[in-house]
């Protein structure tokens, strides 16, 4: 099956810093989503981005499908950004099931 790798696995930032999270995948995809899992375990949708670039406030994401990677940018980080960020992909031809990466655990400190 498709492999999804995320880097870095862990990241500690001071409040106000910027960061880039990376997601590499091994095959073509129909769907790519970025999620934030908060400390209570809720998976929150950030972006649906199988290709191109999107922005939402301090967050933006870019997917280059032909090169099989996606990037999530967090600017001016806040303590509420802490948690685990997951990239999940839907492999072309596998009809809607998402394969998740192992996540990036982010801690934003004061």
């Amino acid at each position, binding site marked *: 099956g498709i492999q999804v790798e995320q880097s870095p696995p862990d990241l500690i930032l001071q409040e106000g810093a910027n960061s880039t999270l990376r997601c590499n995948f091994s095959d073509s995809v129909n769907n790519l989503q970025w999620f934030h899992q908060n400390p*209570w375990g*809720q998976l929150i949708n950030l972006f649906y981005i199988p290709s191109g670039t999107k922005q939402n406030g301090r967050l933006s994401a870019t997917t280059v499908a032909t090169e099989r990677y996606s990037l999530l940018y967090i600017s001016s980080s806040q303590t509420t950004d802490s948690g685990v960020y997951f990239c*999940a992909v839907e492999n072309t031809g*596998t*009809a*809607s*099931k998402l394969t998740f990466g192992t996540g990036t655990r982010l801690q934003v400190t004061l």
Partner: protein
Amino acid sequence: GAGVSQTPSNKVTEKGKYVELRCDPISGHTALYWYRQSLGQGPEFLIYFQGTGAADDSGLPNDRFFAVRPEGSVSTLKIQRTERGDSAVYLCASSRNMQETQYFGPGTRLLVL
């Protein structure tokens, strides 16, 4: 409108017992998914429904696991003869149609003693 809801939020059971986990998707969403998340891991796919039918159940670990969606809305995940290794967070998601954004519920934390 309301998001995906799951009940119960927590379930503690004894090895060998039967459990049912319920998922109420976003109104009007035709696609419904079950995933399982173990500690420190990303969610793993279990089963996907399009309407009432299971379109892909390739992620169910064995025949102790079964899921239904009889009216194309609410779904129940059923686990027979639970084992300690079944302990995990069971997540449900729904999407308006296949290959669209999936929205996740808060999960059911299952602990098998």
